[in-house]
């Protein structure tokens, strides 16, 4: 069976061509122990492997190093029979630089190579390139194409289907040869288009750059937060409907409770994040493919560098305010392993949507409804804003400290970023990428979230189905002495324990313990009971601070484990943030109580 390795520089339109070649018939091929994804797809008996883009065989980022290694291995071990090397026709000399290196490897391993010069639709005059002369000099088939419009696509398919001889050995002066070839056969002028220069003057200007940055990020945040809501609600309704349907056939008892609360609860606990992941991946892909994301990273680099982060850390930090799960995925775009690691560590400190019900409840319980400026500004709203700022403040402090840790002061990759031309993105690769993110999430994190949900349910149900007398309740009483310095009783201990699965469980658990049904919707009843029970301002503030820092989310834990390839990292994070949260809560309590 014929197999084709598709390689090219980043931003050469490789993925769009791969999608055109394989349609939706593709899957991610995970190489053992790495996060690099080689996609595999089939068409008419030909298998295509899409290797992540790399600039040259002198790779510097971890993803590039692994991509190059795996590509080289596949050539040496004859896993691929033909190389399809994608050149960017709009940036011919730098593409040729990489293409000549690939040709050199093809010659050494006697592997046939076909060049496809992509994006000819973006050339002002495609005939300004001497395709025939360039083809002769490369000593291999060269097909000018546009993966976007389909121009030249059939000719490329025919070329792949024909027998091709491996190229001959070539000199190693890739850069000089590429420059010479580009000068001889390429267009006379290859600089950035006037469109790119114009938009860079806008997006990178001191005033409009900042304004557009804030505007675009607000749209991104709102889209992830609001567009996903109807779909999340639909999933919850579907899960609830399925649960009701299933239990209508099951008699009352433990098994029925298990099916409703644990089984369907467990499924809903991870499926509910799917719409957010889809929208986030789609919109980030949109920004990336349009060329804006590179500019946003440049804008943010300096302020974030002070805290040991990269300009590229901004997107996961912003996304983390909606949900940590898609934010962890977004951190993959950070080249520097050290900065990516630090970013992963601080993502759980962003004020995610699961913290909102906890913040809203506690603030309403301890802060009066005072308003200023004719009701325009409310004290409770200010307190809520303050909690989000507090999370960012703690995150930056943690990253600043970590970046100065000697254990993390390893050789790092400097910020070197290609600024791709501005382009109108194509929808197909964006949809495919978003769907793949969803499948990965379900595959990698779904299992652990499901098991964790069931475990908490078992602890809260047994021995007699009464939460007050459950093992979880006993645990709550056991840890009550720990909470005594914060003047909190055992009920808060149980609520804190259950919310280690998901923060939003806090309000529901308190509702059960204070005997209020549907506590999430019936805030006022629960508030009254909690206030009557004597929750002090100092204790309430201590709880707020605790929830702003503690890592209480099974989904985040699962996804961090998947990205870090071990339980050790996320386990240490839960312990460290738990201790930090408690210490900060205690200090808050002591200061306010004094």
């Amino acid at each position: 069976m014929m197999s084709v390795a598709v390689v090219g520089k980043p931003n050469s339109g490789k993925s769009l061509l791969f999608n055109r070649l394989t349609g939706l018939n593709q899957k991610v091929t995970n190489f053992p122990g790495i996060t690099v994804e080689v996609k595999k797809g089939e068409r008419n008996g030909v298998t295509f492997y899409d290797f992540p883009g790399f600039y040259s065989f002198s790779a510097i980022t971890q993803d590039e190093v692994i991509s190059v290694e795996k590509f080289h291995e596949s050539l040496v071990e004859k896993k691929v029979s033909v190389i399809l090397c994608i050149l960017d026709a709009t940036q011919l000399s730098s593409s040729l630089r990489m293409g000549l290196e690939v040709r050199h490897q093809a010659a050494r391993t006697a592997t046939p190579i076909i060049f496809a010069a992509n994006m000819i639709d973006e050339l002002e005059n495609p005939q300004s390139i001497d395709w025939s002369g360039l083809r002769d000099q490369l000593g291999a088939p060269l097909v000018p194409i546009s993966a976007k419009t389909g121009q030249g696509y059939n000719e490329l398919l025919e070329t792949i289907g024909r027998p091709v001889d491996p190229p001959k050995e070539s000199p190693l002066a890739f850069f000089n040869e590429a420059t010479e070839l580009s000068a001889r056969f390429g267009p006379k002028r290859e600089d950035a288009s006037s469109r790119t220069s114009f938009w860079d003057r806008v997006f990178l200007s001191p005033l409009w750059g900042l304004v557009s940055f804030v505007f675009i990020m607000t749209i991104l945040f709102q889209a992830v937060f609001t567009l996903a809501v109807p779909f999340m609600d639909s999933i919850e309704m579907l899960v609830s409907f399925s649960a009701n349907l299933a239990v209508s056939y099951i008699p009352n008892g433990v098994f029925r409770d298990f099916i409703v609360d644990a089984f369907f609860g467990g499924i809903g606990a991870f499926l509910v994040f799917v719409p957010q992941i889809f929208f986030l991946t789609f919109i980030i892909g949109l920004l990336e493919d349009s060329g804006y994301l590179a500019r946003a990273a440049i804008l943010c680099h300096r302020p974030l560098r002070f805290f040991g982060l990269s300009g590229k850390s901004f997107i996961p930090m912003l996304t983390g305010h909606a949900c940590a799960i898609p934010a962890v995925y977004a951190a993959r775009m950070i080249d520097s392993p050290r900065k990516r690691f630090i970013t992963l560590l601080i993502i759980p400190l962003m004020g995610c949507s699961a913290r909102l019900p906890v913040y809203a409840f506690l603030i309403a319980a301890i802060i009066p409804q005072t308003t200023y400026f004719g009701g325009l500004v409310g004290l409770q709203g200010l307190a809520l804003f303050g909690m989000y700022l507090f999370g960012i403040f703690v995150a930056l402090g943690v990253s600043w400290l970590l970046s100065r840790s000697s254990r993390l002061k390893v050789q790092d990759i400097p910020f070197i970023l290609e600024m791709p031309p501005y382009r109108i993105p194509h929808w197909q690769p964006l949809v495919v990428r978003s769907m793949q993110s969803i499948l990965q999430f379900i595959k990698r994190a779904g299992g652990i979230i499901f098991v964790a949900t069931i475990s908490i349910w078992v602890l809260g149900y047994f021995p007699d189905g009464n939460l007050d007398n459950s093992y979880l309740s006993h645990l709550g009483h056991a840890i009550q002495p720990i909470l005594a310095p914060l003047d909190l009783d055992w009920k808060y201990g149980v609520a804190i324990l259950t919310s280690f699965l998901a923060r939003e469980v806090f309000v529901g658990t308190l509702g059960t313990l204070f005997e209020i049904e549907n506590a999430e919707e019936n805030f006022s009843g629960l508030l009254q009971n909690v206030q009557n029970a004597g929750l002090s301002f100092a204790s309430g503030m201590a709880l707020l601070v605790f929830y702003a820092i503690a890592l209480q989310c099974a989904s985040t834990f699962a996804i961090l484990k998947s990205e870090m390839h071990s339980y050790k990292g996320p386990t240490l994070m839960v312990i460290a943030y738990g201790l930090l949260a408690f210490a900060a809560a205690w200090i808050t309590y002591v200061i306010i109580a004094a």
Partner: protein
Amino acid sequence: MGSKLSELKNYETAEIVEVSLDSIPVVNRLADLGLQKGQTVTRVPGSPWGGVHSFQLSNGTFALEDWICRNVTIKKEVNK
């Protein structure tokens, strides 16, 4: 002694004289992008807050961290 790449102003053009960095992989990557001795480079708008400078090389635009630019020697005003 020539000027440094970091001293180049917006839309000024210069020829690269020397890239003095210890990290071979970084030097190789810069060469991949076309940033090597004898090549022409034009400064274009980068981050308004500094820290990163942007340059147009033979056929692409790249952003580089400022400390890299301080280690690249240039000869100003060629082919302006």
